[in-house]
């Protein structure tokens, strides 16, 4: 006891107050965030407020007669009971498309990062190349590819994989295929960034430590690429769930997605409160799912 008592004062003097390593923050530092804040206020906070307000308007109004603010929370209930089908369908299509993107994108990103050597940059340009044409145009060309008299349907019919009057266009398959195609680059790029960073020597170390290439992949490559998997799936899933162009061009009105519903409520039905309520619900739903997902994946640093 005496010895510990004797060393105690030494230990105390050892613990010097932590030096302030942070750079001094003058008013200049705060001035720098003003443009960002202004941008957020103008393009996020104000529209968001407007959306929340709209979702609580009296539903009996119209854009001709104007809306009254009645805090009509029942809008949400109406929206949900009328459109829970498209909402669930959107989540389902989005999830399936994200899964397809993940499988295709991982293989592609892995190949580009580790296998193509000096062709790496060219391959990356090819991944981004579709962005040089418009989203709408690319989706329209899928309409031609999957058309009833197109090559794909012909081939599948010849192989008897599709019945004589079977079709691809206007099916859930076409919608999911369109979503997968359109959002694949959003999956590939973050995955590539993550996989490309992996030190090859770690994979060598795993094989030195008795892991065959399969085990080495699951124990080393995959966990190290998780940040890319998480950001890739988020960048794919979030826009895919809310997308309405693929559904409109490649699907049928019988299998509407929530994006299509919101779009038609805003522009065709002029039912602003319901459209706003649907938008809010979609947003909150996705936010909760993302939070849960990121927490689960253990990559909080992404948020």
């Amino acid at each position, binding site marked *: 006891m005496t010895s510990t008592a004797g060393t105690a004062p030494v230990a105390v003097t050892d613990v010097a107050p932590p030096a302030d390593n942070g750079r001094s923050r003058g008013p200049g530092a705060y001035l720098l965030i003003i443009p960002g804040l202004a941008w957020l206020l103008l393009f996020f906070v104000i529209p968001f407020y407007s959306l929340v307000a709209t979702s609580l308007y009296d539903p009996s109004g119209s854009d001709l007669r104007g809306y009254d603010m009645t805090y009509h929370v029942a809008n949400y209930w109406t929206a949900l009971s009328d459109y829970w089908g498209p909402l669930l369908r959107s989540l389902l299509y989005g999830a399936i498309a994200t899964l397809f993107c993940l499988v295709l994108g991982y293989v592609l990103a892995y190949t580009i990062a580790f296998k193509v050597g000096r062709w790496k940059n060219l391959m990356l340009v090819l991944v981004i190349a579709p962005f040089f044409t418009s989203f709408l145009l690319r989706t329209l060309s899928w309409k031609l590819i999957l058309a009833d008299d197109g090559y794909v349907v012909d081939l599948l019919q010849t192989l008897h994989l599709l019945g004589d009057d079977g079709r691809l266009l206007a099916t859930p398959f076409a919608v999911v295929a369109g979503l997968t195609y359109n959002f694949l680059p959003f999956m590939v790029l973050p995955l590539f960034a993550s996989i490309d960073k992996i*030190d090859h*020597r*770690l994979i*060598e*170390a*795993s*094989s*030195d*430590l*008795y*892991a*065959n290439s399969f*085990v080495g992949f699951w*124990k*080393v490559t995959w*966990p*190290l690429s998780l940040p890319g998997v998480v950001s890739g799936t988020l960048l794919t899933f979030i826009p895919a769930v809310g997308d309405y162009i693929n559904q409109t061009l490649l699907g049928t009105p019988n299998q509407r997605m929530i994006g299509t519903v919101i779009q038609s409520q805003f522009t065709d039905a002029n039912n602003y409160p319901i459209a706003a309520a649907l938008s809010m619900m979609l947003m909150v739903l996705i936010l909760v799912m993302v939070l849960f997902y990121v927490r689960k994946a253990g990559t909080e640093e992404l948020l």
Partner: protein
Amino acid sequence: MSQVAETATPTEDDATYDGLRLRGVTKSFGSFNAVTDLDLDIPRGSFFALLGPSGCGKTTTLRMVAGLETPTAGTITLAGQDITYARPYRRPVNTVFQNYALFPHLDIFENVAFGLKRRKVKGIEEKVREMLDLVELDTQARKRPAQLSGGQQQRVALARALINEPEVLLLDEPLGALDLKLRRAMQIELKRIQTDVGLTFVHVTHDQEEAMTMADTVAVMNLGVIEQMGAPQDLYENPETTFVANFLGQSNLIEGAIKSRSADIVVADMNGIDVSIPAGRSHTDGDRGWIGIRPEKVLIGDPGEQLDAPGNSVPGGVVTDVSFVGVSTQYLVRMPWGQELQVFQQNTGHRRLYRTGESVDLSWRPEYAFLLDISQDASAGADQVDD
């Protein structure tokens, strides 16, 4: 080609050798030969160092033993088993990588347990604890590699390899990233662990001092071939090539013509002065050669002074440079034939210091001299002593 084919089949002798044996191992990358026809025997339980400058093929050799590279020709056997083409994860060999290659997503415990888990060994928890105790990291088990210092990371890398009790532990410049003081401490630590566990260590390094202090046997490698192999003091005292003479420490190499050879002594004419070299330290059959002498073996004295070195006495030097380094004084002495020789004199206090411009005589005992082949480059390895 037929020779390659012959060496490529393990002989009966190989099957009974219990250490690590390389026979005729060649590794080419395109037209470049990183390792050429390498023969190497590393006895079980030894601490073996592969020493050489960057790009000499030592790391390639190590990677072939680990299975991370496949030899272009030749065989590698370990305890009688041919492992030339075995996958890395099937070899009883583990590596401590140069940059440690610790898994950043796993904590220290999981890093160390990695090999055992892959082999589904029982009692992992206990074994990892014991190993972490050995490298004095038991309190850091739940930290990530990035939270540790360089020396601690090095010990994790060592623990992660050692815990698998490999037949051979390969160390690829494991101390290169550490500062000098920590490096010295880790050298002693590594040597202690090797003695404790009794495994075969193959240590690759470009640091000649590190190789000499740690290893039982040192192989000096240059341009893909082994220049000389042996105990550290043998290599230092009796180098067989100019590269070894210059890479391990420093040497004065003076051209001379062979005058006579007898059973135990070779006499050479060194610019008009007769010097003798023991026959066992003569490594050339030609009529000319490089007479080599280590700077600390050369004695320096006033002209005409009787120095304690009967035999090779070289008069007529002029001091051109003096560096006082504390334990010793290093002189550069210009000889009558124009060459500058290095002389290291211990500062024992018995000898006086010489100043630049003073005339001196040099002398050395014949048994310290060595004779090398004149066709070799006298400056080989001299500029590569340290990175």
